[in-house]
């Protein structure tokens, strides 16, 4: 009994230490958002009275609402699209395994191994010829299929009990139906991981949105933040506030989805 108690205590201690280390810089960032610029530079961690003022300045300086809306629109679009397209692909690479499909998978794997800076301009040139510049479709296309997501769902499918699929087939279910009604619910945890990382990566995407969209009204939050640091004088309090606002959506997405980590496979299978 005591051994178990010590075990749990150790777990709590470890988690607390790691949480404090993880949260400390973020806490500092939030506090900085309430301070004036020179105090932030001086390293002040205590909260200040400048939150309203920083907010006012921020709204005057940049169109935060528009940038948040743009980022949100693009992120939701590309996240939903990519999870749909890549989950079924990853599933298929595993469940319908053939040597040739595996070769294709390995080929696709290579595509994530080259830095974006190298493929950026050829991609841009191609999209220019396809008349996709400054269009939402042009924006979204490169993000709709990512090796990370395909890989993630393939690995998840490896741990998925094939027996479920077999019995569903015997019951006469179609393949797509099996995917939707069995795989998706049972691997909710994988979808949680996939949606979260996809959303986060799409939200923080900087270079491609920068060059593909031409209009100032399609500015994203990362671009807005970059604008705040590109002048001769940076208002650090205002900057930290903008950054704090910018990470909210990803945090909210994670908070909502992370409940799915609790349920395990036990309930579903039986």
């Amino acid at each position: 009994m005591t051994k178990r108690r010590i075990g749990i205590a150790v777990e709590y201690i470890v988690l607390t230490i790691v949480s404090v280390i993880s949260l400390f810089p973020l806490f500092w960032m939030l506090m900085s958002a309430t301070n004036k610029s020179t105090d932030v530079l001086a390293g002040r961690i205590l909260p200040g009275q400048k939150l309203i003022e920083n907010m006012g300045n921020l709204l005057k300086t940049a169109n935060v609402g528009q940038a948040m809306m743009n980022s949100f629109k693009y992120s939701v679009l590309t996240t939903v699209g990519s999870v749909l397209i890549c989950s079924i692909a990853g599933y298929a690479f595993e469940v319908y395994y053939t040597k040739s499909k595996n070769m294709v998978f390995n080929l696709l794997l290579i595509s994530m191994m080259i830095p974006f800076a190298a493929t950026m301009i050829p991609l841009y040139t191609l999209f220019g010829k396809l008349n996709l510049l400054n269009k939402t479709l042009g924006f979204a296309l490169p993000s709709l299929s990512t090796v990370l997501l395909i890989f993630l769902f393939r690995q998840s499918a490896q741990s998925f009990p094939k027996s479920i699929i077999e019995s569903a087939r015997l019951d006469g279910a179609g393949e797509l139906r099996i995917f939707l009604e069995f795989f998706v619910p049972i691997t909710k945890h994988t979808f949680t991981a996939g949606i979260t990382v996809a959303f986060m990566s799409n939200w923080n995407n900087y270079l491609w949105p920068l060059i593909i969209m031409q209009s100032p009204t399609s500015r994203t939050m990362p671009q807005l933040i970059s604008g705040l640091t590109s002048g001769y004088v940076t208002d650090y309090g205002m900057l930290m506030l903008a950054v704090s606002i910018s990470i909210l959506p990803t945090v909210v997405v994670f908070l909502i989805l992370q409940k799915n980590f609790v349920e395990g496979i036990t309930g579903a299978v039986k």
Partner: protein
Amino acid sequence: MKRKLSVLLIVAMLVTMLGSCGTASNNKGGKNNSKSSGNALTVWCWDKNFNIYAMNEAAKIYQKDHPDFKLNVVETPWDDVQTKLTTAVTSGQTGTLPDILLMQDNALAKNITNYPKTFVDLTNSGIDFSKFAQYKVALSTVNSKVYGVPFDSGTAVTALRTDVLQKAGYTINDFKNITWSRFIEIAKDVLKKTNIPLLSSQAGSPDLVMMMLQSAGTWTFKGDKLYISDNPALLKAIDVYVELVKSKVLVEVNNWDQYVGTFNTGKVAGAMTGCWILASVQANKDQKGKWAVTNIPKLDGIENATNYSSVGGSSWLVLSTSKNKDLAIDFLGKTFAGSTELYNTILPTSSAIATWGPAGTGSNYEIAHEFFEGQKIFQDIVEYGKNVPKVSYGVYNYEARDAIGTAITKIISGTDKAAALKEAESTVKFQMGK
């Protein structure tokens, strides 16, 4: 069933979103596209409080005589301007380029030389370049053709805390027209008496050394040839920098925000770089009335050494892909190259100091600035600008700057100076393809 339905719904929503968003941004794209027509110009630049503000004021002035004129400023950080420019030209999608863009002076030679047909030759455009500080004009001149309308001044200044100086028994005038050896002498004394260093700089940044180079009318290139190991001004400048650091008169910090922090929080009592730093200097209101400005020290024993130099600064370029070239040239000519009123208006709030001579006659330039003990800093700085030596930064400027920065860091940590510079030379030669 329910799942299938929800998936179908999501797909339907996606398709509609993609479709409608496509058209929406299509329209937006058409309207606010970089390609403007008739009476509108699109400009890429950065800094809401400085360049963008100046551009918008210029538009207002131009609109007095041209009421239909419209200016579309797209806020774009410098790094992004470079990325977008390079991408557009390399991919051939030049339709995405604006009519006018702002470019860092450090990058002028590189871009103009590498993308020859991209910028408009303004030499015979009617703009009178003789009225500008000649060192600025030289920076955007390639093969005797001028491509840029100079804008903000990078004229170097020494800004110091007069209250700290006073404690040590000095005034700002003790720093005017002096040599570096004298500067170090006084600075050491101030450090001894007040325990406060006079300067700070970003470790690894070559700015201070490059500033000294230009003050002696030289650079890391002589024509097309690399001029490093046998460049006496460079050798001297590095010695000065090392001495500044070793004597603790200059504090090295790790990045920009820390640099600004040093003088804002009073950790150091001065700043020496382009005059645009004065905006940051004024960030701490508690220091009002405690600063003054003068010119920079000159290198001892170096031929053509002066007390004047430049760090940074930028110029406006007109794109040859613009459909409104003439409008752009006329606009720039009547505002940044022709309006005292413009420079006068933008001076107080942005501290944007002109490199256009006639601007110095504007009433605001005579202001006795409260923050700077009532000194007429703007007048002074415009005067300094007239004396800055002309140099050409060259196509491989960034490569050379990085290499020098690396060499300086190595020398400070103990590497032999000649060896470090030899290494810098071979690195740049490699980048140049030699």
